[in-house]
């Protein structure tokens, strides 16, 4: 695995340290009060209204647009990619005791990763308000159309297509996405509960477009490859999404060759078990109709693990998952073991997100597919997508 650390990132980090130093000094003069903020939650927010809620929503603490996809060049080279844009309101956040809103409000962060099956190379880059000192950090998002940008990285809706752009030193990706299914609302009309308590529900609003046809160009070492493939998009927004005893999640976005798509969301508890109440799957038919499959009907077997030599974290890279009501049994295998991301320059999470191959038996017939898997919380607990360690200060 090769981690690309572009120079702007180092600069951003240096700026970051510099700013923090300055702020520490300022703080002694000005005090360090956080700003009051009333964020909407899944309890008092919603309902989901489309297309408005695909665009930037201002009233929630955190939101993201997650694109993962499988690309093949004309020559038959295969690639996976992840491109995600996060926006986080920072009135309640601190880093090293310093209120974050002083230097980043809202915070715009983004991750871009490429899995290159030819070179067995996994590369990524993560940014936090790229071009730190320019106005808006040169990042932003529109409320009246799907348009999110962070430096040169962007996703933009133009016409009925979606255009992605991102680059790091070795790779440069530009894609046009044509949606093949309508937006799918998970949970109850998009209200997706992750932590259920008698007194309180936490979670996010969660919308997926599970299948796009993609075409475009991937530059590898300055050489352009014409690529086509399939892409998955997740859109979530919310406030306070996990419970105290939840440390993270394992998430699958699976595209089967028969046109069926499957989202599996497994919430992980401190003791290593899955949350039985809120973990679930969404089964999405080729025509876009969908239904929720409860955790009790999902059988999960972990077949093989891999330990990251950098973070000493263990991740499951081979799975067997059975969706009993549909008579589907899948073996899901990582194309590369090492697809771990250390986003210390942006969201400050160590996680694993990677391209998988799927071999399955579906109603007695062999079927293949592609997937992306995200494993969060293996390295450290994820506190509310906690971009900032300071969030540990918060009461849940």
């Amino acid at each position, binding site marked *: 695995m090769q981690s690309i650390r572009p120079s702007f990132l180092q600069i951003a980090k240096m700026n970051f340290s510099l700013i923090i130093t300055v702020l520490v000094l300022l703080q002694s003069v000005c005090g360090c009060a956080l700003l009051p903020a009333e964020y909407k939650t899944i309890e008092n927010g919603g309902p989901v209204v489309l297309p408005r809620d695909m665009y930037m929503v201002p009233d929630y603490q955190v939101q993201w647009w997650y694109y993962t996809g499988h690309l093949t060049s004309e020559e038959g080279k295969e690639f996976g990619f992840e491109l995600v844009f996060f926006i986080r309101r920072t009135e309640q956040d601190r880093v090293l005791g310093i209120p974050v809103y002083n230097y980043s409000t809202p915070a715009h962060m983004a991750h871009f990763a490429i899995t290159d099956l030819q070179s067995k190379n996994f590369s990524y880059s993560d940014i936090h308000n790229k071009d730190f000192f320019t106005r808006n950090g040169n990042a932003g998002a529109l409320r009246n159309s799907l*348009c999110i940008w962070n430096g040169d990285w962007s996703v933009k809706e133009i*016409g009925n297509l979606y255009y992605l752009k991102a680059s790091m030193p070795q790779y440069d990706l530009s894609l046009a996405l044509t949606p093949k299914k309508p937006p799918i609302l998970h949970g109850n009309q998009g209200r997706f509960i992750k932590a259920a308590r008698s007194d309180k529900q936490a979670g996010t609003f969660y919308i997926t477009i599970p299948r796009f046809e993609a075409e475009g160009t991937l530059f590898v070492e300055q050489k352009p490859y014409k690529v086509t493939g399939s892409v998955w998009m997740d859109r979530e927004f919310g406030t306070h999404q996990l419970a105290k005893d939840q440390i993270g999640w394992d998430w699958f976005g699976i595209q089967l060759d028969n046109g069926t798509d499957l989202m599996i969301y497994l919430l992980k508890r401190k003791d290593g078990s899955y949350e039985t109440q809120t973990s679930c799957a969404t089964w999405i038919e080729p025509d876009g109709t969908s239904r929720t499959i409860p955790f009790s009907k999902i059988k999960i077997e972990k077949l093989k693990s891999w330990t990251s030599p950098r973070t000493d974290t263990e991740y499951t890279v081979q799975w067997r998952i059975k969706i009993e009501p549909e008579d589907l049994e899948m073996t899901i295998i990582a194309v590369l073991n090492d697809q771990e991301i250390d986003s210390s320059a942006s969201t400050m999470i160590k996680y694993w997100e990677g391209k998988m191959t799927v071999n399955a038996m579906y109603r007695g017939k062999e079927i293949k597919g592609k997937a992306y898997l995200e494993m969060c919380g293996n390295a450290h607990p994820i506190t509310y997508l906690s971009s900032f360690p300071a969030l540990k200060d918060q009461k849940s």
Partner: protein
Amino acid sequence: MRMTALSFISLTVLFALCGCASSGHYATATFDRRFSFPADHASHDDFQTEWWYFTGHLELEDKSETGFELVFFRRKTEHLFRMGLPVWWFANPAYVSHFAVTDPIKNAFKFDERIGLRMPLKGGASSDRLLVWSEDWRAEAFANGNIRLSAKMKDYSIDLILAPKKLPILHGEEGLSRKGSKGTLGYYYSITRLEVSGYFMRNGENMQVKAGQAWMDHEMFSGSISPDVSGWDWFSIQLDDGSDLMACLLRRDDGTLDPFSYGTLIRPDGSVFRFMKDEFSAVELEQWTSRKTQITYPIRWRILLPAESLDLILEAVMPDQELTPVATEIDYWEGAMRVIGTKGGSPIKGKAYLEMSGRGEKFKI
């Protein structure tokens, strides 16, 4: 017919050293070529010189009549020297790009350039499809025929989708035209109308493009323009009735027009009328002198095409739309124009782009 800025890396030096441009081992434009689209939107690597020119008019949320120009040049650099150094040591071909924005709301005209020279080479073009780039600027066509343009400079950036509304039009004789009486032959076609959507960024703020129309030119040739031609004035006019007009005036050193000055009219029904020098006239009505270069440019014009009963007045959206790129060392004016006039006696309006080159130093290529 546009060679602005094409003398990438001082062709003046080249001409002083070599006397003439050699086209010996490059492809030559001939009469028997059959164009095929979209394949011919791609790069034609066997020609010495090639360019893709995009100009357009954008209506933004603030209702402005914003203009943009984005052009990519490809130039083979054998025999090309700069400061005594052979350019082909560094880049062959070389990819140069210009980007300009006319922003009437801010009363601003801004331009920038890219030179795909940084190592490893950061410019290129695909010979399979329309994909040309110079550093971070790019034009890329998708399977549905739409073209994505992306470019940025200090205060402005564009990320546009251009959807062709008309078929490519071959200028001259089946795409072939002569670059002046003693000049080489070249190929030139246009997509005279593309619908524009996407985003325009001013000072860090992205704005949705509400409506817009663009024009695309693609030219390729080897060799040089007629030595007695000092520059040209090139018009791309889009009228509100759906007709489009290209006109190219080749100005000679003695002030007269070269007989190979010509143009093409595309009528609303798609039929094409090609005309030569004596069938149209272009009259300069008002001058403007650049403070930066002291070059005088006409910024109001009257264009007459009697055979089609067209009588048009073109007026620059703002006087200063002059580009003074560093890499190409060629100053030129390329700007958005408003059009009013009559067609068959009835009033008509439209939009245009005008390019004027060689009005200062003689243009050589």
